[in-house]
């Protein structure tokens, strides 16, 4: 099933299938790219950011960024 990164539940894991073009370069440095396994660590309430785990590293992303990443879970 496909869903957006910010729609994933706590501790849910998924693989990135699509990242919006204009975002790709920006998040490449933190290791988020298509085909990568990502685990949701936490979501902050009231449209706050998400914290995800990529390669054993935790990275926090704003909601509108997480909104542009499509996951296969």
């Amino acid at each position, binding site marked *: 099933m496909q869903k957006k990164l910010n729609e994933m539940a706590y501790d849910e894991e998924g693989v990135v299938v699509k990242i919006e073009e204009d975002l790709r*370069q*920006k998040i*490449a*440095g*933190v*290791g988020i790219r298509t085909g990568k396994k990502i685990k949701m660590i936490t979501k902050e309430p009231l449209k706050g950011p998400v914290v995800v785990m*990529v*390669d*054993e*590293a935790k990275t926090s992303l704003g909601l509108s960024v997480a909104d542009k990443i499509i996951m296969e879970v």
Partner: protein
Amino acid sequence: MRVLLMGHPNVGKSVFFNRLTGANIIESNYPGTTVDYTKGYMRQFGEDIEVIDVPGTFSLDPKDKAEEVAVKMLRDNKDAKIICVVDASKIERGLYLLLEIIEEGFPVVVALNMWDTAMDKNIQIDAPELEQILGVPVVPTVGISGEGISAVVSKLKDITPVDADAIVERMGGI
């Protein structure tokens, strides 16, 4: 010789820097900016080598002003040698920055820092093989205890730029 210390934020770069340089550390603004950077000296190969601690950056596509300065410092020092400090437990994203620096044509030594943490996390890295593939020296280090740091320094002398094409070729193209 001038050496730039580059790497992601939180890879133990400043601990590394403190180990390399003596007490004579200068903290100042990079010209034309309000971003601080730290500079020091180490005595090696019979000369005083200037060591610059570049602000942490994830890539050479800057996303904020501190990263912009990191990139500017790299571009302003075309003749510098680079120590790229990589968190061994997060090696893949470290390689991303490393490849970008190699593509820019700089001679690099890779310090696989936090080697102990990587071991604790059960991550095994074949450093000699990695060195073969990349064509640049790769040295496991533990910044906090100082392990491997003198090996990194000794490699600085003979490094030359490598061709990213050759790396692609060794991996059978992309």
